[in-house]
């Protein structure tokens, strides 16, 4: 019998010598899987324009990340799938007929300004997709509020005219086109717009199923819940953040509704309309930009739910999810600092000092 390994050849590594099989790229890949049904649904709803928008978003984000890595002289980090997520999320939050060149600009801003400038994955302060969208909202306020009806005729063979706008030109007026392709009972106004400007509250069931106007991927609350549940069950997502954000939005919405039922919609409408579900499930949960402490995630989620409803009800905009999450991201480091958990065996003296 022999033990052949000569002494210098056994590896010197430090404990622990075990490791889970989970990796960053595995987490990110699963988020992409969870987004795919939502993407597919949006293509079914809005046609090839949505598909082109998704492709433009993903391609511009991945390309930007690749170029930024090359410029910084670092190994390309495209393989971790996080840029794909950013691109898909960006496109899902935009109107389905949003001009492709604007989507691409949004992707460049999202990854370039929102992520790579901070140092890449792990160092961004804000959710990159929402940084891109915030830029687009400021730069193209008309285009980003121009919605088209779902289930339009010819949607699988004909682009929404605005989609193919040439770069740096103004998108065409859509009113006439919408009249032509619109199917009865499908409006081009989003449920939030109808609520805000006409005080018409959409029923909960259509919101849950999602055959309404809106941003490409935000319309079906039910599908988004299902896809989020997949990530939660597989433990790729912190369930506490959507739970906190949704319940806070529900409770604040209920408080408004009880105070003035005629003016404010019921809290279920608040929950299932607009981008709240997509934002709570897929953007507020961006690990990098959210707190890590057990108490911190609840505060963070609750804060975002509150801001969303306050903007919707009291602000000038019909939707407030984007700003709510960006504000939540901004205060997340502070929340982390203020909610450091009490450690095992902490001494009373220290508590008095803190």
């Amino acid at each position, binding site marked *: *019998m*022999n*033990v*052949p*390994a000569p*002494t210098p*050849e*056994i*590896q*010197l*590594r*430090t*404990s*622990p*010598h*075990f*490791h*889970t099989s*989970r*990796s*960053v790229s*595995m*987490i990110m890949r699963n988020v992409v899987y969870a987004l795919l049904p939502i993407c597919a649904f949006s293509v079914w709803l809005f046609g090839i324009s949505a598909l082109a928008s998704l492709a433009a978003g993903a391609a511009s984000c991945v390309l930007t990340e690749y170029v930024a890595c090359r410029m910084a002289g670092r190994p390309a980090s495209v393989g*971790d799938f996080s840029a794909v997520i950013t691109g898909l999320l960006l496109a899902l939050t935009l109107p389905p007929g949003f001009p492709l060149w604007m989507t691409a600009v949004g992707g460049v801003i999202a990854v370039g300004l929102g992520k790579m400038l901070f*140092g*890449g*994955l*792990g*160092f961004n302060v804000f959710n990159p997709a929402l940084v891109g969208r915030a830029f687009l909202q400021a730069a193209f306020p008309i285009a980003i509020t121009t919605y088209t009806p779902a289930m339009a005729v010819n949607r699988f063979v004909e682009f929404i005219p605005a989609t193919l706008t040439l770069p740096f030109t103004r998108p065409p007026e859509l009113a006439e086109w919408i009249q032509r392709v619109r199917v009865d009972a499908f409006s081009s106004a989003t449920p939030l717009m109808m609520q805000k400007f006409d005080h018409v509250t959409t029923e909960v069931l259509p919101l849950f199923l999602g055959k309404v106007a809106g941003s490409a991927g935000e319309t079906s609350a039910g599908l988004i819940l299902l896809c989020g549940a997949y990530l939660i069950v597989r433990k790729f997502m*912190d369930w506490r953040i959507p739970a906190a954000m949704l319940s806070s939005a529900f409770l604040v919405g209920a408080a408004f509704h009880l105070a003035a039922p005629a003016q404010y919609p019921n809290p279920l409408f608040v929950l299932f309309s607009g981008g709240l579900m997509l934002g709570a499930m897929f953007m507020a949960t961006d*690990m*990098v*930009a*959210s707190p*890590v*402490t*057990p108490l911190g*995630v609840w505060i963070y989620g609750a804060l975002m739910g509150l801001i969303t409803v306050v903007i919707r009800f009291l602000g000038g905009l019909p939707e407030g999810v984007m700003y709510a999450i960006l504000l939540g991201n901004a205060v997340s480091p502070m929340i*982390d600092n203020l909610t*450091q*958990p*009490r*450690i*095992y*065996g*902490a*001494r009373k003296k*220290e508590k008095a000092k803190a």
Partner: protein
Amino acid sequence: MGLRDLFGGKALRRGVHVPDCKDLTGRLPIRRLPFAPMLVVPLSQHAGAPAIPIVREGQEVVRGEPIAKANGFVSVPMHAPATGQIERIAPAPSAKGDLAPAIYLKPWPSASQEILYGAPQDIERMSPAEIIAAVQETGVVGLGGAAFPTHVKLKLPEGRKVDTVLVNGCECEPYLTTDHRVMVEQPKEVLHGARIVMKAIGAGRGIIGVEDNKMDAVEALRTALGAATDIAVEAVPAKYPQGAEKMLIRVLLGREVPSGGLPSDIGVGVFNVATLAQLGELLPRRQGLIERVVTITGPALAKPGNYLTALGTPLRWALEQAGCKEDLASVILGGPMMGPAAGSLEVPVTKGVTGIVAFGRHDVNGRPRRIYPCIRCGACVDACPLHLNPSRLGTLARKERYEEMETDFHLNDCFECGCCSYVCPSNIPLVQYFRVSKQMNRERKARERAGANA
């Protein structure tokens, strides 16, 4: 207590579930490992001052005879692990990776290897102080891995009282089955040892905590206990790192050891089952500690098992006896979560070695993993049994803000259990960062002291 039992009862809330890999050896009875042709007995096998040799080169010694004496109170003597001849007293490779003084003992192949006992002593009639002195004479230290001299734990500072002795039979590290087999095969010795330390320390009750993946050990202990009520056996749900004494104390008693303090600060003494089994066996007949049970295991071995191994047995010999069948990639002393990798196969088995885990070149854990930046997923925060924030500590370590880690983020409370590194999806070697950071802080303080004295 009431609230705690309501929310999940007696279970560790943080920590991680690791693959336990104990099936390789859990059911195998303890067998004796043959003597190696040369035993290397380091003078420092314990926490505290190294022992002082009392033999000279060329001297013949009998198995069990003292060969080195304790150097002060926080130190223990060494006894000859075999009958044979002292070859030399010289530096030998140690588990830490450096060379440390050791006694080289060449066992005589033809010797009967009978053990030299002292005069039997009756524990019943001994005072606590006498017991403590006798425990030091046996050379017994914490056999769970820490190797802290047991008699030092028994000697309480003036005015301090310990009401409960916890007997640690958790053995939460993957692969290890040393404590498991000791509990199954020597339950009477475990109980006897527990009663000895309870008497020495003045504790009225004892609780043996065993993880529920070892129910045969629980049964064996309960059977041995019979109708006695001074000691209770509790099965706790298996989870790493429950065997860490701070964790076990909270799980079983709901008390927390204050940061930077000792279990005796809150009236608890914690002892490992293998330590107590040795005490229960050795103390009555005044014998020294000359061997211990070691789980020699891992995917690279053909005959993994629980081996009663003479102290000073080199790893190379131990692995050969256990059927080392392929190229070794790494050899771990202790369990894979906290144990160091041996730097050399000439390193000997010492009192604190609970297991030897050997991985071959073809085993999965040989591959390097790519390190990503921290994505703040919080997995480490949810895993840390001390409720520290490893994510933040890791970020600070990268920025070399070591002092802040200590003052604001409790770096020194970390006992390097490895949970954070284990769960990290970015493969960040957090525990290694923390080891380096602690060392940096120690060096900085030493420099400051030197500066103040100059």
